[in-house]
């Protein structure tokens, strides 16, 4: 048997380097990415303001544009998380060959999945913070210490959607397929989760427990509490979203294992 020359090994696990590499590439295109990400929320909020007028409509005791701001923010962040990780995965796997390059290294499935998911969530959170600042200016909610809770909420929800994007990116071979699936999941989940209306009072009572269990609903509720005040236990919401993320992470890991290492 070959005696391998003993090399000291770096203590930094490979997934950290995958995150660093992804963020290095992201930093090069940051301004372009952020421009794209803030475009949709800006247009949406401004259109609604011009359409319904400022302060004329209230929901759950809040001015309507303020009420929808957390959902708009969440939509921007999870869209980044899902599509960024999914598209990169499809591109590297099917077209550029870079993913094959990673597979030639002594990295575990967990390393790769964790690296991709954490990097996707980090990018989504940074983009989300840009949207938060935009909304603070356009909608006019106060920036205070509790607003910082937006960061962990956005991050953990983005982890969930990054893992979903990765699982889809592993299975799918074309970018447009990812678009279809994303639109089938993300938009209905955010709309049903109370982005535009107060689900506590406006949904049939039989649907409320189902909607309330959705991690997207928990995230919107949590963001609403931290940004403009509202009901809900933010710790419980974080725990719920984290459990959903862990399940999605296991699914992504299993999908990777079953699909790419056949």
């Amino acid at each position, binding site marked *: *048997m*070959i005696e*391998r*020359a003993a*090399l*000291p*090994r*770096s203590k*930094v*696990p*490979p997934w950290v*380097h*995958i995150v660093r*590499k992804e963020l*290095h*590439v992201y930093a*090069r295109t940051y301004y372009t990415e952020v421009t794209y990400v803030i475009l949709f929320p800006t247009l949406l909020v401004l259109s609604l303001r011009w359409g319904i007028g400022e302060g004329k409509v209230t929901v759950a005791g809040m001015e309507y544009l303020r009420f929808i701001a957390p959902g708009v923010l969440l939509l921007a962040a999870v869209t980044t998380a899902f599509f960024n990780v999914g598209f990169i995965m499809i591109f*590297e796997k099917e077209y*550029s*060959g*870079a993913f*094959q*390059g*990673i*597979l*030639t*290294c*002594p*990295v*575990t499935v967990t390393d790769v999945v964790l690296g991709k998911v954490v990097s996707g969530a980090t990018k989504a959170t940074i983009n989300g913070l840009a949207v938060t600042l935009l909304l603070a200016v356009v909608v006019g909610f106060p920036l205070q210490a509790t607003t910082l809770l937006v960061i962990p909420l956005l991050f953990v929800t983005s982890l969930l959607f990054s893992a979903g994007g990765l699982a889809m990116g592993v299975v799918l071979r074309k970018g447009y397929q990812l678009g279809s699936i994303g639109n089938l999941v993300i938009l209905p989940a955010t709309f049903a989760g109370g982005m535009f209306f107060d689900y506590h009072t406006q949904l049939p009572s039989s649907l409320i427990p189902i909607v309330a269990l959705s991690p997207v609903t928990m995230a919107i509720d949590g963001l609403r509490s931290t940004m403009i005040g509202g009901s809900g236990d933010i710790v419980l919401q974080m725990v719920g979203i984290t459990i959903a993320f862990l399940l999605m992470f296991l699914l992504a890991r299993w999908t990777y294992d079953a699909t*790419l*290492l*056949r």
Partner: protein
Amino acid sequence: MEPSAPVAIALEGLRKCYGDLVAVDDLRLEVNEGEILALLGPNGAGKSTTLRMLTGLTRPSAGSATVAGIDVCVDAVGVRRHLGIVPQENTLDRELTVRQNLEFHGQLHRLPTAYRRRRIEEVLDFIDLRHRQHAFPSELSGGMKRRVTLAKALLHEPPILFLDEPTTGLDPQSRRKVWDRIMQLRRKGLTVLLTTHHLDEAELLCDRIGIIDAGRLVALGTPAQLRARLPASGVLELTWDAVAIGPAAAARLEADLRRLVGEGLATELDLRGGRARLQTERKGELLRAVVTQLPDHFSGIDLRQPRLEDVYLHLTGSETRD
């Protein structure tokens, strides 16, 4: 290579099925330390699938394999720590420069910073691309990308190297450069498992050659041993312009060549549009018969010793595989 060198790679009844398709079937093979062994075979023969199994990227359906003494089914990550892998396709990250690609690869191998930086300098010199270290892959030629992929594979000083069709798609100059690097590695005592369908490449670089067809190992030996397996001491190659002589004359010519085989002057005939290859034990008689009995349609007549290509075609057939 030492005749009794320890085994670096061992395959024991390795098999891979995708549904009803058997991609690799009962592969048994040993590669000794310091040896360069080529797996030669047509497209779809199972060469790349074999390499994927040996790197732990595809699970065998049956059988076992060890690389550097490590079972690939038990510790695939441990196996890859001992391996340098040059896959068939370009695996460079197009978002990173040459140097950043090497840096990232070294980080994934968990190489300590000082060692990693020293090795990057060394491999850049080895592939002669220090002057392009800040270029992105899109700014490199195909041959340069191949050399960078080789540099990545060598960064962590692996004792074993897997090269999956390392020169496919390269121009002759680039192929020669990659060959030069492989020969340098051979002198350093690396064990190399190489897949190729370039016979000249296999003959030039390798100690032994395994010919694989339809997932099975059909022959294994040194180039000389393989040539000795051909049931003929000579090969007569004939070429003609099939269009110029017309279809009727071409058909008659092919019938005449088949007749020569029927008369026992040749043992095997391989006919491909305007070209015939006859294997024979009766070189003089065959040549005389061709010159005196057949119409003079030939643009080339070449009587020669058997080459590896003849053995390969004898064992795998001449039909195109897709």
